[in-house]
């Protein structure tokens, strides 16, 4: 009887590994397989379902399968875009966890030969009203993002945050980064030429982040905070900044063949995947790796997830050119191996072979067909709203809807002098050329997803698309981060599976390709799963003289509600992809031909909250009458239902907007006029000042 190796793989996987190798792997090989076959690295539960996504399109320069995607922006530029979660580390060590999350996705973008130019974050946090730990996690996650992002000089230009008790012990930190790359100079995470040099660049390898990926592939428990701290990586934004600056310079040479970030799975993952992708093998001398401290064990070196490291595949003979640039920036580097013909991944130590496996065995983990068991639909309890005015104020104050200024003012959102539409709008815009900008919009209502993961996922994409449209952007590509519970539990897995189906269906209907993404499972603590959160970000493109914002600019303009309001209060609203598309296309035309002066997508808090936000931007109120709209449904539904497919626009050309709506077959109705210092809804009104105060201080009051 052979002893069971000390790995987190299942008995079946252990048998499979022995069979594939044809012998008993040694301890180091087991440790490497443990990492590479983890959920985090090989997507063994999710891969089957991710195949549903549409991934091709005329603008896709580099699609799924690399560390991030690249989308064609114009005839010269490509936009590299990636999205990643760093949930478990942020639950244990919020500052380091969130910071290293930024670092990781920024390096993914950098590794494509791109200069990183903007980030946005989606956060899911606990009930900060009642739970002290959640408050602590919230404040420190924001601090981690700020400290790191600000130091590396990449603006955080937008994002979103939700608060719910299901995230008390397991917050979500999802980060999107985009970068600018000459579309003819995209670098791949691949080593296709034998004889090229494998160069490990960046921070010295230390003892941090060991077993990071296996920790990310388990549920959190009461003892996680103590036990898993060594699995959290330590951030060093200054080293990251030097990596960025030196790599931008290196990529201007022709010395580089391939590049990959050392992230989850560290050295093992980066080296094996990059050579495997090129159909090659590797011969590595572990003694060449530059270390932070002496006497590190071999397995520690191999499993370390020390941050701010990159794997460069340098063309044979060009090493000196690369090293000269690295030396200029004082970035450490080491030639650790060569790319070899064949399918062998070999590591030597003191001239002895210590690892010898087929490369594909590491890079191609097992695939599972997990069981899914539907969760019975919850009975919808309609909230009883007695006082509309009080309810509006309480919504504005709620951290989910209140101003996120407290968060985004801690982020440098303007460095690089590109940010055209700043945080606090539906979408964000960053300048790419003198004429055009890139747009980022994001969406996911985790509460809706808990009620109906399939419809909620469709809604997440619909909302992200609307956020791009609302600032005038035409959608180009999707990235996603699918955050779910334990996939080994059939009900949690069903949530994932059905959400993936919903997202795939919506992406196909919108005809927008998914170019990159990430799946984060095991978001449970002490047996309780989070609200499922398929968070979606849409990249778009806008002419800089045609951008749009939500604020009311003038008095006396007409306010038009576009789209259909249904009585969906307290439910997960249904998405009609057909009508959603019609509304979106019409809106894009209206903004393009300058028919509207302000536009805002309706989501959380419905029309009531949406209109208020439009008034707060420049302190201009409105006078609308909701009695005429959506006849036959209760006033509370008219005000607070979160029906999809809706925008509010402000215009001087009401007739033109209504005519367009008729042409497109979209519902549109003038509901009132802008002006004054009140928010007048018809049945009640509230002073703009009072409402704005509730909204502005809602979040901050909970923290101080």
């Amino acid at each position, binding site marked *: 009887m052979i002893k069971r190796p000390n790995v987190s793989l299942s008995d079946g996987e252990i048998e499979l590994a022995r069979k594939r190798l044809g012998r008993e792997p040694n301890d180091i090989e087991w440790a490497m397989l443990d990492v590479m076959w983890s959920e985090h690295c090989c997507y063994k539960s999710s891969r089957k379902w991710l195949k549903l996504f549409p991934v091709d399109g005329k603008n896709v320069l580099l699609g799924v399968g690399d560390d991030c995607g690249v989308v064609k922006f114009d005839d010269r530029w490509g936009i590299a875009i990636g999205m990643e979660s760093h949930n478990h580390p942020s639950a244990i060590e919020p500052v380091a966890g969130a910071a290293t999350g930024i670092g990781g996705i920024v390096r993914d973008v950098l590794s494509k030969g791109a200069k990183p130019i903007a980030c946005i974050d989606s956060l899911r946090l606990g009930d900060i009203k009642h739970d002290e730990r959640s408050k602590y996690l919230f404040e420190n996650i924001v601090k981690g993002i700020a400290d790191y992002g600000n130091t590396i000089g990449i603006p955080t230009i937008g994002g979103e945050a939700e608060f719910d008790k299901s995230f008390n012990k397991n917050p979500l930190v999802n980060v999107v980064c985009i970068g600018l790359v000459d579309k003819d100079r995209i670098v791949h995470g691949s080593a296709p030429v034998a004889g090229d040099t494998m160069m490990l660049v960046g921070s010295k390898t230390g003892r941090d982040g060991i077993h990071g990926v296996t920790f990310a592939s388990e549920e959190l428990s009461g003892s996680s905070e103590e036990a898993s701290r060594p699995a959290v990586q330590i951030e060093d*934004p200054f080293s990251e900044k030097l990596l960025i600056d030196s790599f931008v310079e290196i990529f201007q040479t022709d010395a580089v063949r391939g590049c990959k970030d050392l992230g989850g799975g560290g050295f093992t993952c980066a080296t094996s995947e990059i050579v495997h992708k090129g159909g090659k093998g590797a011969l590595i001398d572990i003694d060449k790796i530059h270390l932070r401290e002496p006497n590190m064990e071999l397995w520690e070196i191999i499993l370390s997830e020390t941050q701010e490291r990159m794997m460069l595949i340098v063309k044979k003979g060009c090493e000196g050119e690369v090293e000269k640039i690295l030396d200029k920036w004082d970035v450490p580097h080491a030639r650790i191996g060569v790319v070899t013909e064949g399918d062998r991944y070999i590591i030597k130590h003191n001239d002895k072979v210590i690892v010898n496996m087929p490369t594909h065995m590491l890079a191609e983990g097992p695939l599972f067909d997990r069981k899914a068991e539907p969760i019975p639909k919850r009975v919808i309890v309609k909230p009883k709203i007695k006082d509309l005015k009080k309810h509006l104020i309480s919504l504005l104050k709620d951290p989910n809807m209140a101003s996120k200024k407290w968060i985004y003012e*801690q982020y440098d959102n303007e460095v690089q*002098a590109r940010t*055209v539409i700043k945080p606090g709008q539906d979408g964000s815009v960053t300048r790419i050329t003198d004429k055009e900008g890139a747009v980022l919009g994001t969406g996911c209502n985790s509460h809706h997803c808990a009620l109906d993961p399939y419809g909620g996922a469709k809604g997440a994409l619909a909302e992200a698309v609307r956020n791009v449209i609302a600032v005038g952007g035409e959608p180009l590509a999707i990235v996603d981060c699918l955050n779910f519970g334990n996939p080994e539990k059939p009900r949690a897995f069903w949530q994932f599976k059905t959400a993936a189906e919903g997202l795939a269906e919506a992406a196909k209907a919108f005809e927008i390709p998914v170019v990159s993404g990430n799946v984060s499972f095991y978001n449970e603590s002490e047996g309780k799963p989070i609200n499922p959160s398929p968070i979606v970000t849409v990249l778009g493109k806008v002419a800089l003289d045609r951008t749009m914002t939500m604020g009311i600019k003038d008095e006396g303009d007409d306010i038009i509600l576009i789209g259909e309001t249904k009585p969906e209060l307290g439910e997960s609203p249904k998405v009609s992809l057909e009508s959603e598309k019609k509304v979106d296309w019409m809106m894009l035309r209206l903004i393009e031909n300058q028919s509207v002066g302000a536009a805002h997508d309706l989501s959380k808090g419905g029309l009531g909250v949406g209109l208020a936000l439009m008034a707060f931007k420049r302190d201009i109120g409105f006078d609308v009458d909701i009695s005429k709209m959506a006849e036959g449904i209760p006033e509370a539904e008219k005000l607070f239902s979160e029906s999809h497919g809706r925008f509010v626009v402000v215009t001087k050309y009401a007739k033109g907007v209504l005519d367009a709506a008729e042409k497109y077959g979209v519902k549109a109705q003038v509901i009132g006029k802008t002006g004054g210092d009140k928010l007048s809804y018809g049945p009640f009104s509230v002073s703009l000042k009072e409402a704005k105060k509730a909204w502005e201080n809602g979040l901050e009051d909970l923290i101080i």
Partner: protein
Amino acid sequence: MIGVLEFPGSNCDYDVLRALQDVVKTEARMVFFKNQDLSDLDGLVVPGGFSYGDHLRAGAIAAKMEVMDKVKVLAAQSKPVLGICNGFQILCESGLLPGALTRNTSMKFICKWVKLEVQNSTSAFTNLYKKGEIVNMPIAHGEGRYFCDDNTLKELKKNNQIAFAYNGENPNGSVENIAGVCNREGNVLGLMPHPERSSEKLLGGEDGRRIFEAMVNHIKSKK
């Protein structure tokens, strides 16, 4: 030719270069901190960022680099030297400007647009503003709380060295709302707000551009 001094960790370097080259349309080049000859330069900008990761204190390590001796020579030659944000911190740490910049009273990084009152309208950088004019520029810093002792403050006032003061809200707890100071001669200016981010209407305002324009005019007038 205006130089933009690049330390490891500088991150507003290319923003300043763009403002000089594309917005103000003047000749400018990057100056890497190692082994540089500054003799061709008519002026210099020390840009914002996190030189040396803000380790020790913001600006403290950069201020000790050899290149700063050459910057002091430029300043002594009456050439305009502008420090923005981290550049201001470096100029204070290196003794080119009086005072120091400490942690914001909120202990948090703050990124927002603020109103500034122009208090000195005669320096090489501020002579295109009117005294008392209120202008808009963004700040983005964690250590921007200007501090100096009472004697220095008296001197600053007496010599008209307070270039900009926060108007309305004081975002970081600076003494006397100070946002920017210049040397006695008016050819060295440091300020926490970012003129390079407020040089184009597209980015939210263009009040900052006049600092660069005045700098360019000053250089031309010397030639």
